[in-house]
């Protein structure tokens, strides 16, 4: 497929969005038409993406191909086109987005079948893909930014999809606002880049940055810090991660697509895309790795005590994104991206698996007229006999995320940890990051085992009435799960390290993308024995976590949510997410709103400016006028007297 047809990948979902959007108003119940338009457009897009990928592969495209569509912001010397950039990185992202996207669209057909907003749902989902593709294909920062904010918009719409519930609508708003804090960073970074480099195109940045920027200098550090602020928003890193767990208010396939596989990884993609800047800013890189490691550990620890199955996965996502940032912060951009890809597979699988569990639970509770929480793991248990396929597939994903060889997560996570350890040789901070990453790996395995046990093993706690209605969903939902299961299991093949007999296929593929930064990063070779030792440590952490988590959960006395006792001690702090949301609310949100209301509006605007100055001056003039009017007695005699006295006085002045 010729590369210049890359716009088709965007055009198909856009068409799907338009059709579904129109149907949402005109014929909201035309489910078949909606499904065809919604899923068909994505599959078409995937086919085109595959074609593009194969072209890039066979034609050995190394220099990015720019496909210009139209001039967007031509203003004097500043000139931005709506243009797409096709290179190996974009090709990989295309496949991930449209591939995983297609599977999740397909899953949604089953999952959302009975929802009244079916057409609206697919319209939003298609629009999301449009913006996500603009994000990964954009040839310049402003075009990327269209996608960047656009996916935020779709995320907002889909989190608040069931908007009649205030909590859902609030969660959507919260996500958008926190993302906007990050977007502020991206904007400032763009302004600074334009001011110093005179270009915002990725090709231009890669060309000009080494010439015009001082490695490690203030300018590049500032730019990368602001870019990273954007990443913390979009990719839910400390301190802006709190929106992602709340984002679980949206439908579960949305959580899989947007809040696990694609959108939240945009931050990692952005760092990879502008890798030359980050390679030139070692201070920022250290910060990124530190924030990533801290987030990985922090979020994993919260995940240990969550009961909502989606919340566990949400914190897991935050934690895994932390790993990716450790990767890109360490300078191994390929490993970060590799983890991005494998994470897209296994986390999408986990979410869709959770979706199939919730679907089953929801139906069971609905059929038995129960109002229990269909997402609370305390109400599950023993589901493996009712949902056997889901059970097997979710175990595959669990092994993958825990880093058990030979599943995909093992390869990607191990590479990141190894690289962090190696980097420790010249920057000891990285040893700490490595240790945090290892601890997080243990915690990850632990909470995943806990999730699996609470959901699928032990006794069923759903209640006798509901139990009869539990059953596995149809093939339209299990089909995508199976494909993702295969990918999660085998995804590691993409980039098997030399130490394990591979040849870093993904690294080779992406080498041209990271060529500009290669000069700024020294690569240290590891002795074979150390590498094997590190692999062993990572695997050990994962396996130990799984085993301990499995046993601890199985042995604990689990009760349905209704009967469960509240947590105490540190467990309660964890269950309440370290009270970060509450702290943000008390320290930032409420003071700002309160200050705006009582000081800025009531005191300053209404009281001082409008009351004292504006109406005050009006009152002042009225007062002076009143004083003057006292001279008007209405008695003609007074007027004449004044007149006469005045006339005499004037005569006196003139003549005297």
């Amino acid at each position, binding site marked *: 497929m010729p590369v210049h047809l890359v716009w088709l990948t965007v055009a198909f979902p856009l068409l799907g969005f338009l059709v579904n959007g129109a149907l949402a108003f005109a014929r909201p119940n035309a489910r078949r038409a909606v499904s065809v338009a919604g899923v068909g457009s994505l599959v078409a897009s995937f086919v085109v993406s595959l074609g593009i990928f194969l072209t890039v592969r066979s034609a050995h495209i190394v220099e990015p191909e720019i496909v210009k569509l139209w001039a967007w912001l031509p203003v004097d010397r500043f000139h931005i086109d709506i243009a797409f950039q096709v290179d190996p990185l974009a090709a990989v992202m295309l496949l991930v987005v449209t591939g995983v996207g297609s599977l999740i669209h397909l899953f949604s057909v089953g999952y959302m079948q009975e929802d009244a907003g079916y057409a609206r749902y697919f319209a939003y989902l298609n629009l999301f893909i449009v913006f996500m593709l603009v994000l990964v294909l954009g040839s310049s920062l402003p075009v990327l*930014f269209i996608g960047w*904010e656009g996916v935020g918009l779709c995320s907002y719409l889909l989190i608040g999809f069931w908007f009649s519930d205030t909590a859902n609508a609030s969660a959507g708003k919260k996500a958008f606002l926190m993302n906007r804090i990050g977007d502020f960073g991206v*904007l400032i970074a763009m302004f600074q880049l334009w*001011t110093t480099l005179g270009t915002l195109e990725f090709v231009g940045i890669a060309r*000009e940055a080494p010439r015009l920027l001082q490695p490690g200098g203030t300018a590049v550090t500032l730019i990368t810090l602001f870019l990273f602020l954007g990443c913390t928003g979009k990719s839910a890193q400390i301190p802006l991660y709190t929106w992602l767990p709340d984002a679980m208010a949206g439908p579960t396939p949305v959580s899989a697509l947007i809040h696990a596989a694609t959108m939240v990884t945009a931050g990692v993609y952005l760092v990879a895309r502008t890798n030359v800047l980050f390679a030139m800013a070692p201070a920022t890189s250290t910060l990124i790795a530190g924030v990533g490691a801290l987030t990985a550990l922090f979020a994993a620890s919260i995940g240990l005590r969550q009961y909502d199955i989606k919340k566990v996965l949400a914190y897991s996502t935050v934690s895994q994104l932390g790993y990716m940032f450790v990767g890109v912060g360490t300078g191994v951009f390929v490993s970060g991206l590799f983890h991005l890809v494998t994470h897209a597979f296994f986390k999408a699988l986990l979410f869709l698996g959770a979706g199939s569990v919730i679907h089953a639970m929801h139906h069971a509770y609905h059929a038995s007229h129960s109002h229990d929480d269909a997402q609370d793991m305390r109400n599950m248990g023993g589901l493996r006999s009712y949902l056997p396929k889901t059970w097997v597939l979710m175990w595959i994903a669990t092994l993958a995320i825990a880093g058990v060889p030979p599943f995909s997560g093992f390869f990607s996570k191990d590479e990141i940890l190894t690289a962090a350890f190696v980097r420790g040789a010249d920057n000891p901070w990285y040893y700490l990051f490595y240790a945090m990453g290892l601890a997080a790996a243990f915690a990850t395995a632990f909470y995943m085992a806990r999730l699996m046990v609470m959901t699928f093993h032990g006794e069923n706690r759903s209640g006798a009435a509901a139990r009869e209605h539990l059953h596995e969903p149809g093939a339209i939902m299990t089909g995508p799960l199976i494909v993702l299961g295969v990918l999660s299991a085998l995804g590691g093949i993409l980039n098997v390290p030399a130490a394990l007999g591979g040849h870093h296929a993904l690294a080779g593929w992406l080498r041209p993308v990271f060529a500009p930064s290669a000069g700024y990063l020294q690569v240290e070779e590891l002795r074979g024995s150390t590498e094997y030792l590190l692999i062993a440590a990572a695997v050990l952490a994962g396996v130990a976590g799984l085993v301990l988590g499995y046993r601890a959960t199985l042995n604990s006395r689990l009760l349905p949510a209704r009967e469960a006792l509240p947590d105490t001690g540190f467990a309660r702090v964890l269950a309440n997410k370290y009270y970060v949301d509450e702290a943000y609310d008390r320290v930032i949100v409420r003071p700002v709103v309160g200050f705006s209301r009582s000081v*800025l509006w009531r005191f300053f605007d209404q009281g001082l400016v409008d009351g004292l*100055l504006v109406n005050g001056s009006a009152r002042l003039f009225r007062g002076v006028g009143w004083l003057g009017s006292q001279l008007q007695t209405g008695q003609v005699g007074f007027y004449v007297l004044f007149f006469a006295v005045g006339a005499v006085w004037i005569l006196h002045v003139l003549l005297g």
Partner: protein
Amino acid sequence: MEQFFSPILAAIGYNRWILHVLLILPLVGAIGILVAPGSWARWFTLVVAGLEFFLALGLWFAFDPSNGGIQFESQVDWIRGWGVSYHIGIDGISLFMVLLATGMMPLLVWGSWHSIQVRRRGYYALLLALKSAMIGVFISLDLFLFYCFWELLLIPMYFLIGVWGSSNRLYAATKFVLYTFSGSLLMLVAIVAMVWTVGRATGTYSFSYDHLLANRDALAGQAPWLFTAFALAFAVKVPIFPFHTWLPDAHVEAPTAGSVDLAVILLKMGTYGFLRFAIPLFPAFALSPAVSAVFVVLAVTGILYAALVSMVQPDLKKLVAYSSVSHLGFVMLGIWGSTVQSVQGAIMVMIAHGVSTGCLFFLIGMLYDRRHTRLIADYGGIARVAPILTTAFVITAFASIGLPGLNGFIGEFLVLLGSYARFPVAVGIATIVIVFAAAYLLWAVQRVFFSPLVHEANRTLRDVDLRELAVLVPLVGSMIWMGVYPNPFLRRTEAASRRYIEMVSPHLPPLAHEAGVIRQEAAR
């Protein structure tokens, strides 16, 4: 398209008569309404408005984008003894103001169709007279003429607010007139002083803009107070923080069409005045570091302050009114940013703000027509009963927030990008507003349209009808058009912006990055 239309327009001598017709037609229409039977008023206005808009559309094609100077110019002596002439013309800056004013006309009539029940004749006559004055402001190239239109505009607006407004209308109308009038009287003094000073220096006493501009050096000595007088008049109209408190009252009390006209056109007159008169006439003083600092600080303060105040408004119209103050702050920042990008950005913000805030006021008017309340707390869950209204509101809200791909982003982005080289810290602070802008609008959207439907009265709220759809579709469509393909707009404003920069550039300090870029281009 242009190749097709240009010859036709040339054949009918369009360039010679169009501005006169645009100026006179609404006034003639207003008189026509007064003599025609009352039941004709709406249709008659619609026909006049439609005709006006149709005629104005030709400007889009007849305008020469490569020419940064004045086009469609014509001049006739008016009061020869005083050096006053009827001198009109437009350039890339005023083109869009005229198009905005005329383009809104049919929508305003459609939008008021059922909302105005009393004294229709007077209402529509004033609406048309207001248009003439607005167009006059933007096409005048003689300061006397400009001042006449500037003040003329207050009269219809006063009555529109004072007669057809809501409960506290008299207070709002009086405040509006006195506030803006006290500002503009200073401008009158400055205009007369300016003509006199230039007249003494050159021997020609003339109110002509070109004449004054060409001899602006003679004004340098008195620039501080002359500029201050102009700036005060324009600052009130913009309105720049802290001269903004008339705006929320006027917006809240005005009928829908009045609010729309205020937002779309009246607020732009202030910023237009800065771009056309205040800065080009006194560039050395206006762009000196001290004065720049004052205006940039006021602009940035206004941007943030208005956004924060907007966030806590219980009244939808007040919320949007304060958001206007915030948006106009961007225009001021862009004007003082003084690069081609920032000035074009400022013009784009002016256009975009007109379209999206105008649309927001239309939407609020539609809600008001149904429920007779503007309080956010009286709504909730509207999305369930009125999906089309909700969709339009959400799109417009996101346009106003500055979502890329919609119109608001283009202007704000260019303003910030262009001003960054000159005022990095101010731009950094101003950019934070993207968070607050999202906060106030999305919070309002959530409380009005999402959440449970708690008020019984809202359960039967009907969705938009065809007439209202006819108002919304062009507005929402142009938001998307301007966001996705702003090229036609940018192309038509570019030459004028560049000419403006050339006009003021001798008085600007060079930019650090321009030096960098030039060095870089030389190296290549």
